[in-house]
């Protein structure tokens, strides 16, 4: 078997360079609350490697992703671990007359929205060949974040081998010095910037997450810059009342944005369910390119912020309905 997949590395697994970055990052407990517009303007640069928290359509940082599209960032790399609505959103920056937002994608799962079907526009973007791809799996991509959060250049895995997924990845093989087994290893991935939506955060960036954390514990620690959006801004005293509940500490965080309903139309556990009607609307409208352009113009480019988007999607009444679906699922 080949010792190395032939896929490209979109970020160098250089743990010493990452250490230099983290050494120089300011670590005092300063007030990091700012608007979504300011956070994206200051912390997401053209050409950055971007990663997004949650699970595609569950606890996603929709407001921050909208703003990245609205500010028309160019030439981003992206980590597509079960990326569903988040990937679909970012594709609104490609082939829609505003340059090319996505340039390189590490893929575990893109284009699809799980059982809901495939996104026609995401297919257009990916099948055209304009985006360079490297293949991974959900676990190996999570493991790449984990390696970065640990500060080591690689981590081993038992799976992944023998497949075309391996062949089109940038994974490699290492011999175990104890068992002489050959093992697959994956390179650490330090995203330039990550966006994560959480339940609660204080002004300094100490965060709590309820329900599954997916890869966000490691992603938050791996990201060189981290923007957090939260359902509720809580006091530092509240954080200190239950330090066991802190999932992300302040020293990982660069910006805190208070965005109630910030995961909409995605599910936010214990808060609101996903808006399946709205997600179906996306998939339907994307089939008709002109209708799609008008749709994203109305919902993203012609809105000035996420609150306007929520209003155009049904506002408080719709959110109340989704809250009911979440809290009374039977």
């Amino acid at each position: 078997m080949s010792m190395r997949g032939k896929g490209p590395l979109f970020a160098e697994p250089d743990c010493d360079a990452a250490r230099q970055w983290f050494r120089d990052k300011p670590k005092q407990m300063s007030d990091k609350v700012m608007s979504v517009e300011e956070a994206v303007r200051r912390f997401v640069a053209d050409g950055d490697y971007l990663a997004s928290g949650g699970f595609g359509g569950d606890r996603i940082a929709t407001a921050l992703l909208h703003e990245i599209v609205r500010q028309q960032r160019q030439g981003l790399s992206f980590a597509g671990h079960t990326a569903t609505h988040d990937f679909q959103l970012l594709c609104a920056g490609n082939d829609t007359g505003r340059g090319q937002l996505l340039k390189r994608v590490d893929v575990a799962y893109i284009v699809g929205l799980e059982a809901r079907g495939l996104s026609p526009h995401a297919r257009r973007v990916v099948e055209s060949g304009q985006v360079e791809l490297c293949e991974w799996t959900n676990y190996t991509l999570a493991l790449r974040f984990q390696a970065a959060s640990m500060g080591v250049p690689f981590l081993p895995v038992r799976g992944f081998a023998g497949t075309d997924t391996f062949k089109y990845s940038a994974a490699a093989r290492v011999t175990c010095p104890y068992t002489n087994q050959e093992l697959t290893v994956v390179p650490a991935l330090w995203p330039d910037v990550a966006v994560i939506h959480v339940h609660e955060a204080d002004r300094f960036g100490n965060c709590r997450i309820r329900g599954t954390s997916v890869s966000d514990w490691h992603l938050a620690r791996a990201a060189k810059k981290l923007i957090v959006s939260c359902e509720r801004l809580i006091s530092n005293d509240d954080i200190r009342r239950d330090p066991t509940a802190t999932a992300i500490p302040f020293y990982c965080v660069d910006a805190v944005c208070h965005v109630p309903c910030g995961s909409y139309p995605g599910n936010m556990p214990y808060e609101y369910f996903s808006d399946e009607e709205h997600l179906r609307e996306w998939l339907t409208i994307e089939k008709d390119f002109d209708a799609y352009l008008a749709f994203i113009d109305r919902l993203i480019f012609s809105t000035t912020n996420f609150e306007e988007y929520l209003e155009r999607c049904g506002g408080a009444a719709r959110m109340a309905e989704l809250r009911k679906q979440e809290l009374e699922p039977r």
Partner: protein
Amino acid sequence: MICAAASALEDGAMVVVGTGAPCAAAMLAQKTTAPNLTLMFEAGGVGPRLPRMPISVGDSRTFYEGLMATSMSDIMETCQRGIVDYTFLGGAQIDAYGNLNSTMIGDDFQHPKVRLPGSGGASDLGSLCWRVLVITPHDRRRFVEKLDFVTTPGYLDGPGAREAAGLPPGSGPYKVITSLAVLGFNDTTKRMQIESLHPGVTVEQVQAETEFELGCCSPLGVTAEPTTEQLEILRREVDPHGYIIGR
């Protein structure tokens, strides 16, 4: 399909399931023959009391009144260290060795005819769980001689290949439950073979819908018809809105 899949799961086992038919099968098994079956979902949900079918393997129903809401890594590591008995997978194509394609259709990786979502957790789960169950419609476009892309390893190119690639010994595809039959894998050749035909289906029919040559178990069984109780539970409790069984 769902009833046949449910009967593959014994009580007290652990299974990582996706949404749709696999989840329906696992829920049905829980409500009938395997009340002590533990469901896990790759995004981190463990042991929920599913109030209804999840829409995403990461949505909040996957840990509704659950035993644990944890990380994706925890689930995958639990598979990797050998705790998890079963996983359910699907795919656009499957070959004689149970290898699966869910990445692309076409022969040029940079310009696919159809880009599919990719592995997601499938390649991980298919590598790391002990036994892989596949649920899929049965037709020649899906049951192919050669995959356009090997996303998830089955028995790769035959006996010993999984082990040679470094995948855990003793793991691999277990059963393929289709619209026509229940298939397994020959212990020696690791190739797919028919274990039982659904009522009214013939071997010829199954072979006609399959590009590669199928073996047959002897004696060849007949898949048990869904019982009234199973159908009742499916319709009333598992999928009252007909998301799965309506289709």
